[in-house]
């Protein structure tokens, strides 16, 4: 039982941080072009964006 008092809050905090990370990425438009994101890693970026 004592293990649960630690583990359950940890699980919830981890889950919530994942959720907020997703919502943040969503609001930043990172899900607008998924196919393009896969390709952009191949582009050699010479100048700063």
């Amino acid at each position: 039982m004592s293990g649960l008092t630690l583990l359950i809050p940890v699980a919830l905090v981890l889950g919530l941080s994942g959720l907020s990370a997703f919502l943040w990425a969503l609001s930043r438009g990172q899900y607008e072009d998924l196919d393009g994101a896969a390709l952009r890693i191949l582009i050699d970026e010479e100048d700063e964006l």
Partner: protein
Amino acid sequence: MSQGAASEHVEFVLPGVKCAGCIAKIETGLRPIPGVRSARVNFTSKRVSIDHSSEVTAEALRRAIGELGFDAQSVSTVAPSGDRAESRALLRALAVAGFGAMNVMLLSVSVWAGAAGATRDLFHWLSALIAMPTVAYAGQPFFKSAWAALRRGRTNMDVPISIGVTLATALSLFETIVGGPHAYFDGAVSLLFFLLVGRYLDCAMRDRARDSVTALMRETAPGATILLPGGGTAWKRAAELEPGMRMLVAAGERFAADGVVEEGGSTVDCSLVTGETLPEALSAGGTAIAGTLNLSHPLTVRVTAAGDRTSLAEIMRMMEAAGQSRSLYVRIADRAARLYAPAVHTLALLSFTGWMIAGAGWHQSLLVAVAVLIITCPCALGLAVPVAQVVAAGALMKRGILIKDGSALERLAEADCVRLDKTGTITRGRLQSIGSLSLTVDEKRVALALARASIHPLSRALAAHLEGEHVATAPVEDLREYPGLGIDGRLRGARVALGRPSWLGAEAGDGATLQVAFLAEGDAPKLLRFADEIRVDARDAIQRLGAMGLDPAILSGDRREVVMPVAEALGTPALAELMPADKVDTIALLQAAARRVLMVGDGLNDGPALAAGHVSMAPASATDVGQSAADAIFLGDKLMPVAIAVAAARRTRKVVRQNFALAIGYNLLAVPLAIAGQVTPLIAAAAMSTSSLLVLANALRLRNCAR
């Protein structure tokens, strides 16, 4: 468009973007252009969006992309934000539901594994703590829609969902308070999760298509210069024009109203209205149509109809009227819900009364009724349609076919005859060089410099062709355009010219093709020939459509002698010289005979017919009106996408039916268990997930449906 240094935004469709190299090439190629603030390619929707200042025009940007070797098709500037609000909200709800489902399931597994007493109660309380805010937030899309339907005295799929989820949550809370053994929090939350997946996919598909649809009437003229009765001129907005006014229309301007030419003679580009690419001659006494482009000479036009009385506005009204029948179409999921929702509610009510009569007590009876509601909740049913349609739409998108929404796919599958426009649909709607140009590399560079200086369709076609060959321009000076004749200039002192063959002393050939002569001083003039050619695979596509039982035929507004050779080459029947209203009538006649017409067209003149058809498609090169009236848009230079889209839609319909069968079969198995009171939360969760996964897996078979 606003003037000054205001930031402007423009988007182009780029059918040719295929790899990372293309993205890099376009983005790095556009950024150095003065006035361009940012350029970003969206590979998924095959578009580039450019923020720029008024220093550079959209047309110049389109040309710049052309020089990079890509064909940019313009789409109007849709508001960049706001239109995705619905799918964003659904995705947020989906994320919350996913979080809730995972954590509640984690706790539930422990309960199923045998947690008892205080631990079980603690876990139930924790589940309640997670599930209730989750249901309150993530359930909103369903609650809202159910409430809207109930208020209008109707029912839809969301009514049983809302009742099921709310009842299950409330009852589970009660169970938790009294320390009962069964709580259905996991069922309620994972139900929401699965349903939101379906809902989100459906919405995302509509969004993606909306991106490629353009706003209406972008190309109309904002106003005209009016000759005042007492002499002098004044600029008036299109809405302020009245019949009887005389407007001055310069070369390169669009007519702001319908009218009769009083003075002058010119050529007019009517492609917006008729879809015809070849310019038409217009002289005194001729009729000018609002929206068409005056190409070569200034004209004085007496206005006969303005504002919402122009033939352009008339066409828009016809489209609205024709499109109304389509809004009555009921989608397959809603048809299913009409039968399903009452059945589910009756069943739950019957189980409740049955157990009450059997003397089980209201608590036990309610538990059974809720189990029935959860089990029958159209989880797989809610996924069955959208998942299949989204997978199909994704496959079609890879082939350059954009489907506007799920209902378009359903109607496409039902089509049993197809009617095609000629210009721009069977033909490419663009002037193409016949064979390769008989010019040397140096001459091509000169020709490009000359062609760029004019907006005449032939010059544009030549420029586009040369840009496609990656020709650089030569430093031609003293460029001068002679309206109706051509352009000339000087290259290192020698005269070079591009224009009408007779003007440059060349001998014109037959009249079927359009010709332009190129002259470099000292050499004999060279003839360049252009025509609006039939799409390369038109014959194959028509044959395939015929083999699919779609009975293809041509409906064209063009002249009979132009249409008939095309019809013969393709082996299809054809009707020529049809006015927009005639096309609508032809389609109405077919529909009255219980045929479901797929209309394929591009021009403004096809707009009403596209709206009248059971379902419609337009090429991406279509006019704005054509694109917005159509249910699906195909990119590229081929006609085969029409046949592919129908084939894919039929495959989708098949899979959707299989999915319905799977979902109903699962209900037939699970419902008796629920009524018998044998369904524990564990069984409910397992049954629900299995049926959803089955439906998903079946839908994924559509990944290669676009063949």
